[in-house]
């Protein structure tokens, strides 16, 4: 797999293989398209259903299918397929621990010109609050295709945040993706913990800092729930300072996860939480522009680390 592949293609190509090998796989979409999905639709029409713009109905249908032994993937836009049908996810999927994978495309400011209704900045916080839920936040094509497989094998509900675009591979060859995180740059006294789209940006931050003689480590937390003790032991317990970097809002995402772990373990280190502001952005612009507005662009992150805040 080369870094030129779009993450959606990597993910949906794996879904295609899975659907091919298991007739019980059913793919639902609420009128969301993806180029790489069209092959699935064309080759396995009996396993592909467009429920049209009805998130609640889609989750309900997914539940009923899963109750009858189907392995269901339900696909929509991150901000809608979580919040619009939150209760359906909570009650009809999670409370009965059904093996349904919800795929949300458009995390963060991926949808650049569609306004705040399309900003996926609250979905992590709300999905995290649902018991039984596993959450994957994809940062490159290797974790994307692996997450498709892990989701398929899961016996419970899964939420996958799927981005658009090509991202460089961050893993080593032997990565098994079972721990929920991977060390991208060797750990140091100061470690950045980032997730999803922000991890490639964090890589360039570490390179910039290295050129200024500051070595910082980088960990990609690609599984936001559950976050195990291993993450705490391997990363937080050995850090003198942690910088969290996410595109989600500061009200309940990665930064909160790290703060909770530190609080629960009583580890009194400095934390710099970099996230989107708790603000509705009735604005339109490129994703990088939004990052600038929120102080999570590369230059701002570098400054935040250097200033020791």
């Amino acid at each position, binding site marked *: 797999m080369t870094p030129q592949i779009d993450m959606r293609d990597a993910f949906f190509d794996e879904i295609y293989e899975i659907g091919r090998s298991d007739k019980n796989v059913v793919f639902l979409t609420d009128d969301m398209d993806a180029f790489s999905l069209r092959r699935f639709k064309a080759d396995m029409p009996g396993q592909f259903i467009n429920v049209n713009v009805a998130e609640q109905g889609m989750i309900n249908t997914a539940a009923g299918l899963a109750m009858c032994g189907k392995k269901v993937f339900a696909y929509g836009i991150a*901000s*809608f397929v979580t919040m619009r049908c939150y209760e359906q996810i*909570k*009650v009809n999927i999670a409370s009965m621990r059904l093996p349904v994978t919800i795929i949300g495309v458009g995390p963060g400011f991926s949808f650049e010109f569609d306004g705040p209704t399309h900003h996926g900045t*609250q979905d992590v916080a709300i999905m995290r609050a649902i018991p039984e839920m596993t959450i994957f936040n994809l940062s490159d094509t290797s974790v994307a295709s692996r997450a498709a497989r892990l989701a398929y094998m899961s016996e419970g509900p899964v939420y996958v945040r799927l981005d658009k675009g090509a991202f460089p591979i961050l893993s080593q060859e032997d990565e098994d993706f079972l721990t929920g995180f991977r060390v991208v740059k060797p750990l140091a006294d100061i470690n950045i913990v980032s997730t999803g789209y922000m991890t490639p940006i964090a890589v360039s931050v570490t390179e910039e800092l290295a050129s200024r003689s500051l070595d910082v480590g980088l960990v990609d937390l690609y599984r936001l729930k559950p976050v195990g003790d291993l993450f705490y032991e391997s990363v937080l317990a050995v850090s003198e300072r942690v910088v969290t970097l996410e595109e989600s809002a500061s009200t309940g995402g990665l930064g909160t996860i790290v703060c909770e772990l*530190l*609080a629960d373990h009583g580890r009194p*280190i400095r934390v710099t*939480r970099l996230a989107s502001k708790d603000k*509705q952005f009735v604005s339109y612009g490129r994703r990088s522009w939004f990052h600038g507005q929120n102080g999570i662009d590369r230059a701002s992150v570098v400054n935040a680390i250097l200033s020791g805040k």
Partner: protein
Amino acid sequence: MNRGMLTQSLGSSGITVPSIGLGTGDRFWDSDISFSEKVNLLKYGIDLGLNFIDTAEGYGHGAAEQIRDDLCAMGLPAVIVASGAGYMYSGDGPTHHAVQDVALMRTLPNMAILNPSDVASTIAFVKEGCSRRAGPTYVRIEKGVLGAIYPDGHDFSRGFSVLTSGEDVAIAATGIMVHMALEAAEKLTASGVRASVVDVYRLKPVDAQALMAELSRSRYIATLEEHSVIGGLGSIVSESAADYGRATSIKRLALPDKFAFSYGTREWLHAQDGLSSELVAKQIARWVTGK
């Protein structure tokens, strides 16, 4: 602002409310007018002075997106009064447990979250919501009789109140759990662990710096809430500690990240989760003294 809306007094609270309240159960969210017409209706009503809205937690989940987009995005000053916090509907199973609502509401920009712990604060917060212009307000109310904590006319602007002082452990609590915290603090003090109780009644926006300054006066910090351990007061205090000083050891006492398929009284459900004044006092004592 009142443009001709008929008003009346709300019980004996002294609050003036419109004579028409808006119910946001099934019929509001799923009535047969279009989405944008609903929003326009809401705005029109609010312009006319309609700012009293009744809902319950279950409606909030399904309508959270609408709340976010319609109320929050457009800064409409509406008060969402939610009954049934935590395990209040204790015989009705997890569909009726409002244990994620704070986590949800926290993600909504401009939303204020108020969790009263007695009658005086309940009245004050509904009043506050009615006059708040910066955005909507979510008030988590209780059924039944809780002991009085605040006098009428108390100034709630700070967002939290120190109810008792004690330098060994500060217990930050909210809503109905403030009462449990006060009882636990008594038990702790009697056993030699000096506990303070801080009622964090405003969960958003939180003056994190001031709150941490207060909580840090004690050596240890515990949080107590009738909400999931994910996304509520415990998470808020964890963030605040990290943001304004050092991440520190915080004992987060809350409902577990699990669906509670048990039925019983509210107190019984609490006890199942290790939450009673006695169990809380024991847990905190063990943690603080290391024995």
